[in-house]
């Protein structure tokens, strides 16, 4: 039987296990929307295509499955761009489907035409322009395979409207057809043996774990390695949750706003075991001063991530879970007692802290969210101080519970991502720990959350500032607060106008009751407007370009 391209698209998505599409209609996707009209596949109408892209990304991070978003040609597609770039930087499997003008009009500056494969080429893992309906089914198979395998990432499929209208026989291909694409999965046994030997010889080893651990589902193996060899673990921002922060070997996050003890430990280490992390500049600080005595074992599925920023002694290319389980079979206990004592000294001397008085401080809000959700919630964040406090003052114990735009640092990411996470995990408590600035970048998605009865909780750490930028201005630009002071709307009223709940909290003692009230709402989003100390800073902090043990502020 012949099917239209639009039908083939939706049937193929179902065969790929897709349960939900986030998107927005328009002229060149009308045939697709006509199929969606009475199709059992779930469709979530966002209020901006950027919201759809972030929601697909949040869904993917929360569930581990590919997220799918759909937009029309031209402006619809270009509105996806920030979301696609966000997913690309953090290696998130997203499949973006965009309408395109009719094939014979491509290149003519037709109405709502944009060269979307051109625009997204550097921010997708790969993209496709389908010019013939007979190639559609195979292209979708390839797209999902690419998005989810190897180092995952967003893949875009551009579909001219005549291709979605044309008909052909539908056969769902069993296999992808990509001869140039062969990610390495199992690590080289010789390299793994060398790594085990190096670990045994080390005196001050440290595991530096990133988002790749979560992507490959390697948390259990990582824990085994740490326990078996008694090696402390620090994680990147995106690695939060891959190792329980309640574990005695946990050092929390490292880097620019990492813990003092994680930064001291990595700087003094003689062996860094990097797993699914990429030595980003926010982590290493000044490169030529980074961990001067350390040998480096680098486990990563992407060969191009290895020796890109730092020279690596033992590269092991492959899937982290696979490699760690091989390594765990041969690794032997290491005498790290002294080393752990030294680290404990730092932990005692410089814990993460903030002023405990009766002012309403943002860190306190995050701590209370942790207390009330017992670390079981999914915490999405915006970008800025809110993101860092959410990373510092909530103890993550499970993977896929801290969801944040790390690589691109996209303000406006957290709320739509929380919507996606809530759709994917309907039984979980989902928070967006937000800034007053960031939340306003996708505040329109309140309508999406209300319409779909999603009980996402937005906890605005409202400091009336673009706080993180203000912090830099305070510290490095003589307090010249150039355009970082915000005149905000009444967020409670805004929430109410959208049909959401709104709660304002101005006193410390009201934080817990307000959170409890928010947690009791099960069928609507809740906006919590926490009026916090305006000029609170995120500490410790490594100034840009400094070595990461040169921290300022806090007790560091």
């Amino acid at each position, binding site marked *: 039987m012949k099917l239209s391209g639009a039908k083939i698209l939706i049937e193929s998505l179902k065969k790929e296990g897709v349960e939900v599409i986030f998107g927005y209609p328009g002229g060149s996707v009308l045939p697709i929307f006509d199929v969606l009209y009475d199709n059992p596949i779930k469709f979530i109408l966002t209020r901006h295509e950027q919201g759809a892209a972030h929601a697909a990304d949040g869904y993917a991070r929360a569930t581990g499955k590919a997220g799918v978003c759909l937009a029309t040609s031209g402006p619809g597609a270009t509105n996806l761009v920030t979301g696609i770039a966000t997913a690309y930087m953090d290696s998130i499997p997203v499949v973006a489907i965009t309408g395109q003008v009719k094939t014979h009009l491509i290149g003519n500056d037709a109405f709502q035409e944009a060269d979307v494969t051109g625009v997204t080429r550097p921010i997708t*893992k790969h993209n496709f322009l389908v010019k013939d309906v007979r190639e559609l089914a195979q292209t979708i198979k390839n797209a999902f395979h690419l998005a989810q395998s190897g180092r995952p990432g967003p893949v875009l499929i551009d579909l001219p409207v005549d291709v979605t209208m044309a008909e052909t026989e539908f056969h769902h291909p069993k296999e992808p057809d990509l001869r*140039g694409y062969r990610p390495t999965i199992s690590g080289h046994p010789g390299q793994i043996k060398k790594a085990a030997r190096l670990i045994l010889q080390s005196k001050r080893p440290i595991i530096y774990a990133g988002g790749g651990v979560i992507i490959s589902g390697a948390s259990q193996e990582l824990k085994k390695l740490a326990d078996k060899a008694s090696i402390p673990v620090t994680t990147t921002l995106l690695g939060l949750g891959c190792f329980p922060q309640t574990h005695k070997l946990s050092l929390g996050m490292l880097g620019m706003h990492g813990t003092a003890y994680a930064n001291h430990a990595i700087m003094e280490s003689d062996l860094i075991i990097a797993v699914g992390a990429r030595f980003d500049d926010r982590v290493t600080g000044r490169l030529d001063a980074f961990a001067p005595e350390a040998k480096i074992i680098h486990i990563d599925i992407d060969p191009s991530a290895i020796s890109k920023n730092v020279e690596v002694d033992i590269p092991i290319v492959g899937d982290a879970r696979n490699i760690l389980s091989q390594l765990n079979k041969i690794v032997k206990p290491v005498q790290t007692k002294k080393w752990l004592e030294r680290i404990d000294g730092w932990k005692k001397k410089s814990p993460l802290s903030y002023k405990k008085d009766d002012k309403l401080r943002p860190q306190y809000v995050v701590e209370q969210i942790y207390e009330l959700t017992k670390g079981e919630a999914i915490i999405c964040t915006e970008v800025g101080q809110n993101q860092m406090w959410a990373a510092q003052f909530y103890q993550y114990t499970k993977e896929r519970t801290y969801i944040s735009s790390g690589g691109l640092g996209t303000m406006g990411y957290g709320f739509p991502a929380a919507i996606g996470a809530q759709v994917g995990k309907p039984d979980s408590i989902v928070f967006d720990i937000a800034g007053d600035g960031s939340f306003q970048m996708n505040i329109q998605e309140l309508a999406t959350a209300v319409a779909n009865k999603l009980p996402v909780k937005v906890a605005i750490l409202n400091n009336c500032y673009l706080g993180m930028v203000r912090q830099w201005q305070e510290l490095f630009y003589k307090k010249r607060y150039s355009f970082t002071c915000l005149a905000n709307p009444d967020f409670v009223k805004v929430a109410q106008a959208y049909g959401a709940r709104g709660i304002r909290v101005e006193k410390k003692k009201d934080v817990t009751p307000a959170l409890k009230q928010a947690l009791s709402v099960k069928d609507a989003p809740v906006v919590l407007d926490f009026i916090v100390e305006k000029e609170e800073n995120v500490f410790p902090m490594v100034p840009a370009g400094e070595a990461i043990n040169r921290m300022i502020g806090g007790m560091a």
Partner: protein
Amino acid sequence: MKHTFSVLVENKFGVLARVAGLFAARGFNIESLAVSPTNDPTVSHMTIVVDAPDERILEQIKKQLNKLVDTIKVQDLTTEDFIDRELVLVKIAVDAKIRPQILEIAQSLEAKIDEAAANAVTLEVVGDKNKIHTLLQLLKTFEIKEVVRTGRIAMSRK
């Protein structure tokens, strides 16, 4: 140091843009790039000559080329025995005194000669990078009006 890469890619639209975009986005300099079909209609061949300032960048270039979904095979020919060729057209301003000197150079390099213009001679030289280098050295003292080169093509001897 200059490196010559032989790259097999899918013969699809957009592949050249992906390769060019990769170099542009990462600030790697392409010295020459020659693309052509192969005996397999689904595969194109690219010879890419790049100047890699250090090992780290060279490694990145290789890895990034390999990472492209549409690349089938990447070889750094510099590390092995290979054949390379380039065709160069050079137009040189001549008068009665200079013309014989140019013709002599042409003969020594087995160049083809085009003398259709009254006050210029165009040489067509095919050769490996040494020969092309010699040609350009020999012509240095003359008034060159135009040079057009195909860019290097190369193939492993194995």
